């Protein structure tokens, strides 16, 4: 029967691995509830796997399509939105929770009131911070959420907001189980709502070993198309080469953020997928403290950095990324090509530094993210290049890189002078770039890493949300882009593609232009 150690191994493992996928991910999730984060690592692991939203984006044309809500109605003044929920949607059944009822309006109420109502029982659980919702000003926008009947929910807004539906369709607006929450209150384990998650999504959490792996089992009573997979495992492998090695050795079926694209393309057993992503990689200046509280210094540094070199070195050339002039990618309808480009000029940099009275130079801490993301595959190397560039104008750069959770935590506290970071859009509405990155509200929650708060800028992007007229919004956004280019709270570096490598046995779409990955349609033969 089994002859020899290795032959037997691969034969029988074949049955186990026939319908199981191992996905090598680049980092460990901070929590299992996307409401609490903006980090892509957590979104990839949780949003589309464990949960559903009321509405979602249709992958083909980016329009809004039904999910947990089978239809919705918006009043003419754009201030009241009513959702009609789908019936017979079941929550996960696990060894720590057995649902006794299907999804109804109470669950939707619970999920949103937790964020909006400061007195809510679960508001402060796990920290009380909902960065995405805070940065789009959710609590100010929504006047109330009412339960009309078991399967109808109405949102009443304080003002019209053209990005409201897009925000509700994003990966952050997931629906939790109120019944589970009640059980946790009785058991006095309220944090488990975020660490031992229950949702309606196509997968349920079987096991999580911190920093090591996540094991998902299929949700047998899923309301949509059941997945064909028997098991989904996220193998957390922060090392780039480690992920590629596992892919080449057959220990991983799919790999996030692959390197060495030629090696993958040449291998007949592997394929390389890519998608044009809505993202921006940038160098953010902490405008709250010296030296970058001075606009002239920011401009000086901007002139001193050779962005083309960075593009060639870190992004390996034009095929993989475009040079960014503003935070919006050129494919966005609100893009403005008249924004002046900051040219690479050491002389201008020195001149500006002199004007600011800092010709003797100074020392700064440059924080570089430790994980790879589409918008920045190698922040540490980028930091080294910037270090060498700034040395020429007398600025000494200390490069700081910590583990991802610690990094984000301390960044929010403003410990940095400058940071190499980025942003991947959650939905195609341009507001998704402006508000979370540069608004005053976002500066308070710490998501705006530049802590830049400009009243006229904020005013413009706010006004743009009040109207649904595309032309009007476009003009307003152009004005906002000009202000950002003048004040330069951040230096845009590149927009890039998001890549993924997989074994040819894997079928089905996985990558989206924005948002997290989705394993529901993925199968293995």
């Amino acid at each position: 029967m089994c002859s020899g150690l290795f032959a037997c191994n691969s034969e029988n493992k074949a049955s186990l691995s026939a319908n199981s996928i191992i996905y090598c991910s680049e980092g460990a999730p901070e929590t299992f509830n996307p409401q609490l984060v903006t980090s892509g690592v957590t979104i990839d692991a949780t949003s589309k796997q464990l949960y559903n939203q009321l509405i979602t984006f249709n992958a083909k044309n980016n329009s809004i399509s039904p999910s947990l809500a089978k239809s919705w109605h918006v009043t003419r003044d754009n201030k009241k939105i009513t959702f009609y929920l789908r019936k017979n949607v079941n929550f996960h059944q696990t060894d720590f929770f057995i649902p006794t009822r299907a999804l109804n309006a109470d669950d939707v109420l619970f999920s949103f009131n937790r964020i909006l109502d400061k007195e809510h029982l679960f508001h402060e659980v796990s920290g009380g911070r909902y960065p995405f919702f805070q940065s789009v000003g959710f609590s100010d926008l929504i006047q109330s959420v009412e339960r009309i009947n078991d399967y109808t929910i109405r949102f009443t807004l304080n003002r019209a907001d053209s990005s409201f539906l897009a925000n509700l369709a994003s990966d952050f607006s997931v629906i939790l189980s109120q019944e589970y929450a009640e059980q946790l209150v009785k058991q006095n384990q309220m944090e488990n709502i975020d660490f031992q998650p229950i949702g309606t999504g196509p997968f349920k959490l079987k096991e999580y070993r911190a920093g090591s792996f996540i094991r998902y089992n299929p949700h047998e009573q899923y309301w949509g198309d059941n997945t064909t997979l028997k098991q989904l495992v996220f193998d957390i492998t922060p090392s780039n080469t480690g992920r590629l090695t596992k892919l080449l050795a057959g220990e991983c079926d799919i790999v996030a953020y692959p390197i060495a694209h030629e090696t993958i393309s040449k291998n007949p057993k592997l394929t390389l997928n890519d998608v044009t992503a809505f993202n921006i990689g940038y160098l953010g200046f902490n405008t709250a403290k010296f030296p970058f509280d001075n606009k002239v210094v920011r401009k000086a540094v901007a002139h001193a950095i050779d962005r083309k070199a960075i593009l060639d070195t870190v992004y390996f050339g034009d095929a993989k990324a475009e040079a960014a002039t503003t935070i919006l990618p050129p494919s966005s309808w609100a893009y403005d090509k008249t924004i002046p480009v900051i040219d690479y000029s050491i002389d201008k940099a020195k001149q500006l530094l002199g004007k600011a009275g800092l010709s003797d130079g100074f020392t700064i801490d440059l924080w570089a993210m430790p994980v790879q993301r589409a918008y920045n595959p190698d922040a540490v190397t980028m930091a080294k290049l910037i270090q060498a560039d700034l040395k020429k104008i007398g600025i000494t750069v200390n490069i700081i890189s910590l583990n991802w959770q610690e990094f984000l935590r301390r960044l929010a506290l403003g410990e940095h002078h400058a940071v190499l970071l980025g942003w991947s859009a959650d939905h195609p509405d341009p507001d998704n770039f402006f508000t979370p990155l540069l608004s005053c509200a976002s500066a308070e929650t710490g998501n705006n890493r530049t802590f830049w708060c400009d009243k006229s800028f904020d005013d413009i992007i706010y006004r743009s949300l009040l109207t649904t007229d595309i032309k009007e919004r476009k003009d307003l956004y152009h004005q906002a882009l000009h202000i950002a280019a003048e004040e330069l709270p951040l230096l845009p570096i590149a927009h890039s593609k998001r890549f993924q490598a997989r074994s040819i046995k894997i079928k089905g779409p996985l990558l989206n232009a924005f948002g997290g990955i989705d394993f529901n349609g993925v199968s293995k033969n």
Partner: protein
Amino acid sequence: MARDNIYQEEEFPSPLMQLWFHFRQSPVVKIGFGCFLFLCFLAIFSSLISPYSPVENHLDSLLLPPAWDDEGNVSYLLGTDNLGRDMLSRLIHGTTLTFGLSFIVVLISLVIGVVIGSLSALTKGVKSSFLNHFLDVILSIPSLLLAIVIVAILGPGLSNTLWAIVMVLIPQFIHITRNAVEEEFNKDYVLASRLDGANSLRILHYSIFPNIIEKLISQATLAQSAAILDIATLGFLGLGAPIPMPEWGAMLANGIDLFYIAPWTVYLPGLAILFSVVATNLVGEGMRHALKARKES
């Protein structure tokens, strides 16, 4: 009358000359010694020899393979890394760091270890037993763990790595010195000196040291090869030389991410480390052989 020498004088070469004579016997050892000297030369004159600066980025020549490959370029003999830095220059400068530092590290720990070891050999009783047990404890802590702890206390950086490895090597020298000195103390010639009235320090200096120096040198070469590997390992783990410095272990760590597109960035530093450790070990082997041969003859 002229004092002609009629008798053939027997020349008794000094112990060191005898050592050198036996050392030279084996051709392999001679090669090893030659390589060792070559490395010392590179370490001292690195700035003069290397064609480029080791930290200069040549952004138009990224990831060039070594010159013998089709896409290589003769001006960058061993290729470049992902920031365009010349591999050959980095390897040469790395000799100063990895190899040169190991030499310094061994020297420092030799001196300190010998001093403490001989002083402790002079003490007896509880103090001696305590020191013995203390040494046992230190020797049972893995050297990397000890280095990690010391780097954690002092912080990362080149000089702190140096001190960490010095502190890891000192116990070995103390151990060897102590045992050797105690062994010699029991011998007759020491007894004779004592009877003459010499105090312990004098005995140590004149009688014992010359006789144990060979054991010390033998241990020193072993320690140097261990030190090269330790420095490279700490550099590989990112706990050693700061980022742009071309220490071989750090270069290797930098090359791992490029392994599939530029494997020479991993192979070359590894070969450099292997080469220097083998050279050091050959010299050590030769010395031990020569010592044994001299003792036997």
